[in-house]
């Protein structure tokens, strides 16, 4: 067995590529952990090595089924890491694989560090000595990328919500610590009422954040998406193409009534809630009349904007204006009608948007839709698409940390209610503070002491 005592998990397949995604779990409790959330005729704990099992992943707390899956059991040392490994193959797209991973993280596994499976494989002798340097390069590059992403997120709206929560907890912790380390000092004792109040306030907000997380807001409602463009750009054919690709979860039958204003399509597992679909499907003369004006009103509330341009025509003044206006918004430029001769000068758009955000398609011929799907996934997972008015929690690591923080706060509140001594409750408060810190990439330690000595006047 490896030198690590704990069990790790991560998505093992590249996101946004292919419809089957695999969650890999490795470590001494891999089998037990997955078994807790696996509903099947097979009992994983008694399963033989190298066997595949059919069943469902379901949340044991509320019975909610997340996905239909195949589970592979590979017992150490005959596995990639030489530890017990369980692989869960999901097929419900990115959202499903993320929620399966999050459930597994809540039931005993820890999110793997970048390159950690490979590291374990090497440390357990599964990878040849000659590969040591390659393993190091992998860890370095993955960690650096993760670090950059984390730094970007630390400036994001999630961090803005976490920072004040941590501030409340550390103020409480400093107060508790002063009571312990300076018992004769004239600082009021922290009462269990104060602990319950502070932890309760923070817990409410943690729960609120979790509700906005992927499994909540995004699954239920999808990303609010506006398809905008000039009347003849091909908005409705793009919409129809998305539906035709059998990727649509249509909330109502499209086009049958003018009352329908939105519907949901699933693009690469990410649900997009399309705004004003009735408007898009209306007869062309009406569209002519409403034109860009109507599209503009949809822009205000959109989390994601798909700007459709007609490659068969030169850029219109309205379009140029839209391009400028949407430059700093989460927008993709869909250059449609690539089956027809080009009249559009793309280089100008590339200089504004960068080629990553430009997707050439032919909605009519069904060309380029996979690329569109990949582009949407990229935006979604890089954090550049955020649900408006709510802090969107995209990262499974963050969701797991929020769950842990919530659990610790609940423990602290319960303990305070039972009259448990304050120095024991502190263990739970600290755990919550540290879990929230993982989201910011902060580490505990000296900063608690800083807080104590800036908050209280102590001395001999």
């Amino acid at each position, binding site marked *: 067995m490896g*030198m*690590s*005592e*704990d069990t790790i998990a991560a998505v093992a397949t590249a996101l946004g590529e292919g419809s089957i995604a695999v969650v890999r779990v490795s470590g001494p409790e891999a089998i037990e952990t997955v078994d807790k959330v696996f509903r099947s005729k097979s009992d994983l704990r008694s399963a033989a090595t190298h066997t595949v099992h059919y069943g469902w992943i379901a949340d044991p707390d509320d019975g909610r089924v997340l996905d239909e899956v195949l589970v592979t059991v590979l017992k150490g040392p005959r596995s990639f890491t030489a530890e017990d490994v369980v692989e869960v193959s999901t097929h419900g797209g990115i959202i499903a694989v993320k929620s399966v991973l999050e459930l597994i993280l809540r039931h005993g596994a820890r999110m793997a*560090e*970048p*390159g*950690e499976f490979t*590291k374990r494989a*090497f*440390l357990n002798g599964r990878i040849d*000595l000659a590969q*040591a*340097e390659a*393993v*190091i*390069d992998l*860890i*370095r590059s993955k*960690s*650096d990328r993760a*670090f950059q992403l984390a730094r970007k997120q630390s400036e994001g709206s999630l961090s803005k919500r976490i920072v004040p929560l941590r501030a409340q907890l550390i103020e409480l912790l400093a107060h508790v*610590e002063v*009571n*312990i*380390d*300076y*018992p*004769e*000092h*004239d600082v009021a*004792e922290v009462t269990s009422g104060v602990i319950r109040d502070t932890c309760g306030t923070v817990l409410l907000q943690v729960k609120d954040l979790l509700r906005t997380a992927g499994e909540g807001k995004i699954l239920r409602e999808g990303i609010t998406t506006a398809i905008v463009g000039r009347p003849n750009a091909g908005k409705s054919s793009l919409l129809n193409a998305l539906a035709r690709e059998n990727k649509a979860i249509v909330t109502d039958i499209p086009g049958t009534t003018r009352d329908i204003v939105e519907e949901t399509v699933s693009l690469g597992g990410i649900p997009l809630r399309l705004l004003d679909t009735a408007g898009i499907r209306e007869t062309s003369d009406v569209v002519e009349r409403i034109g860009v004006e109507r599209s503009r009103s949809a822009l205000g509330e959109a989390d994601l904007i798909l700007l459709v341009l007609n490659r068969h025509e030169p850029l219109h003044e309205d379009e140029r204006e839209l391009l400028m206006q949407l430059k700093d918004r989460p927008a993709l430029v869909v250059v449609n009608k690539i089956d027809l001769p080009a009249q559009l000068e793309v280089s100008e758009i590339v200089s504004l948007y960068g080629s990553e955000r430009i997707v050439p398609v032919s909605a009519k011929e069904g060309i380029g839709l996979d690329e569109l799907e990949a582009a949407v996934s990229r935006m979604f997972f890089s954090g550049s698409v955020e649900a408006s008015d709510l802090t969107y929690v995209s990262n499974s690591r963050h969701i797991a940390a929020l769950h842990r923080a919530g659990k610790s706060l609940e423990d602290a509140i319960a303990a305070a209610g*039972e*009259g*448990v*001594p*304050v*120095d*024991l409750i502190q*263990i739970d408060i600290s755990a919550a503070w540290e879990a929230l810190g993982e989201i910011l990439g902060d580490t505990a*330690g000296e900063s*608690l*002491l800083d807080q*104590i*000595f800036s908050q209280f*006047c*102590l*001395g*001999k």
Partner: protein
Amino acid sequence: MGYRAGDYDVIVIGAGHAGVEAALASARMGCETLLLTINLDMVAFMPCNPSVGGPAKGHVVREIDALGGEMGRNIDRTFIQMRMLNTGKGPAVHALRAQADKFLYQHTMKETIEKQERLTLRQGMVEELLVEEGVVRGVVTKTGAEYGAKAVVLTTGTYLRGKVIMGELMYESGPNNQQPSVKLSECLRSLGLQLVRFKTGTPPRVHQDTIDFSKTEIQPGDDKPKYFSYETEYLAHSENQLPCWLTYTSEETHRIINDNLHRAPMFSGAIEGTGPRYCPSIEDKIVRFADKPKHQIFLEPEGRNTKEYYVQGLSTSMPEDVQLRILRSIPGLENVDMMRTGYAIEYDAVVPTQLWPSLETKLIQNLFTAGQINGTSGYEEAAGQGIMAGINAARKVKGESPVIIDRSQGYIGVMIDDLVTKGTNEPYRLLTSRAEYRLLLRHDNADLRLTPLGYEIGLIPETRYRKFLEKKERVEAEIERLRETKFRPDEAVQSMLEACGSAPLQNTVDGVTLLRRPEVTYEMLERLSPAPVELTDEMKEQVEIQIKYSGYIEKQLLQVERLEKMEKKRIPEGIDYNIIHGLATEAKQKLAQVRPLSIGQASRISGVTPADLSILLVHLEHYNRVTAAQA
């Protein structure tokens, strides 16, 4: 004028709280030991507060005692007041604190040292270390005496290039107007050790007969005091304790200080050393916490045969005339006579990341440092390092491997690991919040944690160890008995539960389950189902704590277990971090400076990321496989 004055296994320089523990440990472990001090009247002197213990510090005293050290026994014999603090909180943070008769404390310690076999106590100021090829060989004193040694322990306190500051006045001095040690500091610097300048301070002392105690609140000791040492039984002076007294600063105090800030060295720039945040002077407190209308002042007697009182809370480096006015603005001190003036003191300390966890310097073999020279503050912190430096110096002389206390084993371990791994940019004080396993490092279980180690290294005598084993076995047996004992929901049990406000039993439960209820105590269960042989109070306490808090205790034990593999994964001493491909530059520098002994220690260095640790692990695996292939 130099002459050869003798040869020893271990020489300890400085007979403060670190030095005496180091010297006693070394001599008790069988080494011929010389303890040198600038002034023989200053052995185990308390230059600041006349007290020992408190949260974390008191825990350290218990640990020293559990290892076979002297501080606990000595304070038990010489206290004038004893209090258990934090009794309203969990057992882990209960903390014993004693007021000492500071003169008796010194004399008792000095006598213990004088009686100790293989230990020579001598007055002399060491000015030079003799070092040959990176190994310390002896010391030279100011009077020309040259002593040979196999190992040397430096416990110089605040003496190194000491400088006393009061207002505009500044002079070279050790604490309490002792001679400072200037040449030794220069010697350390020339040997290549990196030194920093730290600062601490002490309040004025006043005459008892000039205090109006009617304007203060009395702070008595505990009626039935507990003791620091596991060996101490009953002491008669427990019945005759002296109180402390509480008063507060006034508006007038704050006005005087604010009016004279231009004369305060802290603000005029005269002080260059870094002072501790947790121990600010009164002028510092009033500037930083301007909104706080008054500050607590405790008046503490310095002994039974003296009229001197320590004014706790009034540490200051204001000029003498301002100090007197500050004192007289405090209720109860209107007519006070100031016997000694408070002062700030600056001194040289060794940057502690230059040490191995054994407290041996990396630069000079067989040279150990302990106490304030390592950047700490406090008698207990000093003594805790002192005993470890003494143990490890003796073991080095005997060719044995160093003893290192883990962070999960004791506050001493937490402190030393913090110092040698993270360093410190201010005088370091132990706080319980520095320990991640606070629940395991309890005041009550220091013997369970460390006495087996003390026995193994030869500091705990056979008789004491047997007594310890008996206690341990009886506690375990009693927990087992309670686990086996069934309590039915009968009349006796239900009325006991009702009396203490606990819900009635629905089913039969075992004693352990019942005792986990917050309202139920061991004493109650004992009345219903007595142990075959009655346990001592200490054993009863242990049974109760181990059962009552087992849930939390097990959680922490699990954490310790999880991290243990990291702690056990050794890093070879000679490793060259610069050639490790993939390590970040900052990690390379920090690792090369600290030279951690294990992956666990490396993980606590700030600036070393999890990715760096992974890379280090992969490198070590590579290294091990290559080495194994070559062998």
